[in-house]
């Protein structure tokens, strides 16, 4: 009997990502609970790291191969990239990284590739110093972002693009949100410290706690007991901006997995909240989170752009529109975006966002507030999108966001990825006359 080697398993996971799977989903399916914990951690590290530096590793691999690999060899391709990742970024002794990666060819049952893998990795090791010095001349490889995204971020953020791209190559922090109905932040910090977990209060979100050494939250009893959730600080700012009061009718239009939904209710449990999502599987996660945290909301599987299929005709005083977007602000958390996202998809997302804004605006009560949110850094999805909406809706005006976080990006405010360790988010508050 045999068990799959971590490197072979990581190569198979990566191959499915190239075929369009989401990394977190692919890992959940491939790394089973009975897989040894240490090996599972290595598989995750290899997958996340290889995707984080994919444009650079791909550039090197192309130069190291005399002729391109066959398109039908995605697993071998992934294995060579993760070999280069170990040599360039991980603290694995090079001889072990090479030996184990070459050995994984046999696990993938590609014994014919042993010689090739060995030659590529050894040549990289010999030429590494030289390859590093010439890297700055190749922008996409140097910044480790796909060319199209690099160009767009540079165009949209001429003063900040380098920092944004650098943040996209970082490992994200683990940030928690305390459920203030069950615990105070101070009490949670004491409990974490008692468990040997170093953490500190966030600067902007009153419910936020940043953990300095990420750990598996499921090992902390307070998680199952609903004392806290995992959520980036930037995402925690939504609840405060929306200002929900007791008795208000509130719509969370794209709610799954329910992080912001639950936060709104933790701030104001007496709100009447309707949470929508058009994906039944993901909507199930909203139920799970509500239950774990001891909260109540109505959850519907429905398409936000088709209110006639789910709306009862009574206006909402608050609408949270956390719109589907390029996710260019959370690349450090989901590095598979670097290989999965295509530029043409962004245009489709921009059209979808406009459609959602237009469809939901009539559902907002006069005097009500709609919070438009994306985890994108692209102006087209953010400031330009909201500008376009304001121009077409005379009864809409943007409320200024007075905050110490982010940079003004009228009509809203942008948190740049990596700023104060936060994810990249855009917020615009729209008031209805």
């Amino acid at each position, binding site marked *: *009997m045999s*068990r*799959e080697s971590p490197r072979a398993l990581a190569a198979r996971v990566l191959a499915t990502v190239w075929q369009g799977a989401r990394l977190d989903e692919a890992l959940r399916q491939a790394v089973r609970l009975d897989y*040894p914990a*240490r090996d599972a951690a290595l598989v995750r590290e290899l997958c996340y790291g290889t995707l984080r530096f994919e444009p650079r590793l791909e550039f090197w691999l192309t130069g190291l191969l005399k002729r391109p690999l066959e398109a039908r060899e995605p697993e071998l391709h992934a294995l060579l990239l993760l070999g280069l990742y170990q040599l360039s970024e991980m603290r694995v002794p090079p001889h072990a990284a090479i030996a184990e990666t070459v050995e994984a060819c*046999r696990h993938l*049952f*590609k014994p*014919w590739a042993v010689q090739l893998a060995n030659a590529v990795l050894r*040549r990289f090791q010999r030429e590494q110093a030289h390859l590093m010095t010439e890297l700055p001349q190749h922008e996409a490889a140097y910044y480790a972002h796909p060319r199209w995204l690099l160009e767009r971020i540079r165009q949209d953020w001429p003063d900040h693009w380098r920092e944004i791209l650098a943040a996209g190559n970082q490992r994200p922090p683990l940030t928690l949100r305390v459920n203030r109905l069950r615990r105070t932040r101070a009490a949670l910090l004491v409990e974490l410290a008692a468990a040997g977990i170093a953490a500190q209060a966030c600067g902007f979100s009153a419910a936020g706690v940043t953990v300095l050494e990420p750990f598996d939250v499921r090992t902390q009893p307070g998680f199952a007991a609903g004392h806290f959730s995992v959520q980036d600080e930037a995402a925690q700012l939504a609840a405060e901006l929306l200002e929900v009061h007791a008795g208000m009718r509130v719509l969370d239009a794209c709610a799954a997995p329910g992080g912001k939904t639950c936060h709104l209710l933790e701030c104001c449990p007496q709100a009447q909240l309707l949470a929508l999502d058009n994906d039944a599987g993901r909507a199930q996660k909203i139920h799970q989170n509500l239950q774990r945290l001891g909260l109540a909301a109505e959850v519907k599987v429905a398409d936000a752009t088709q209110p006639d299929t789910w709306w009862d005709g009574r206006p909402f005083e608050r609408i949270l529109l956390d719109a589907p977007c390029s996710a260019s602000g959370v690349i450090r958390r989901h590095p598979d975006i670097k290989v999965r996202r295509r530029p043409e998809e962004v245009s489709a997302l921009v059209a979808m966002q406009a459609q959602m804004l237009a469809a939901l605006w009539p559902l907002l009560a006069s005097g009500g507030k709609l919070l438009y949110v994306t985890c994108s850094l692209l102006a087209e999805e953010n400031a330009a999108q909201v500008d376009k909406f304001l121009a077409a809706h005379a009864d809409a005006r943007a409320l200024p966001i007075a905050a110490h976080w982010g940079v003004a990006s009228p009509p809203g405010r942008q948190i740049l990825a990596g700023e104060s360790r936060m994810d990249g988010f855009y917020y615009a508050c729209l008031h209805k006359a």
Partner: protein
Amino acid sequence: MAKLTILHFPDPRLRTRARPVPAVSADIQRLAADMLETMYAAPGIGLAATQVGVDQRLIVVDVSEKGNEPRVFINPEILARAGTETMQEGCLSVPGVFEEVERAASVRVRALDGNGQPLEFDADGLLAVCIQHEIDHLNGKLFVDYLSELKRQRIRKKLEKEQHAARSAERGAAPAI
């Protein structure tokens, strides 16, 4: 010690029902040592004599994290089974394939150890799965037999293709670098 050649599915020799070991001789002990070496080099966590083309009821197993707890079982038998457990399995005779198989969660095993001493013990977890997987080999059974016919055919085709590619590579196709 010597590394042995592992037979690959669909080699018909994997379908042999192995004969009991009549006595734990020096030859049998050498075979066990060679099989352990072969298993560690593969790398695997269990190997049956059938997989190296030897018609004897002998298996070697090491399910420890560090790979430093080798065990030899001669003429192993399962006396009792309890519960069910599903685990992802792979097999050194079916390289590159990892699939879920349902087996008994715990088993009572009787065997001789590498010195011919009788053993009787209960196993659960990975050890139970591994022992059942290896005893299956001694009975000519493979873990792919638990999968659907469709899946087994797909695996057979994939392996035949890879075996063909490996043979052409050995004949000296130029590597891409």
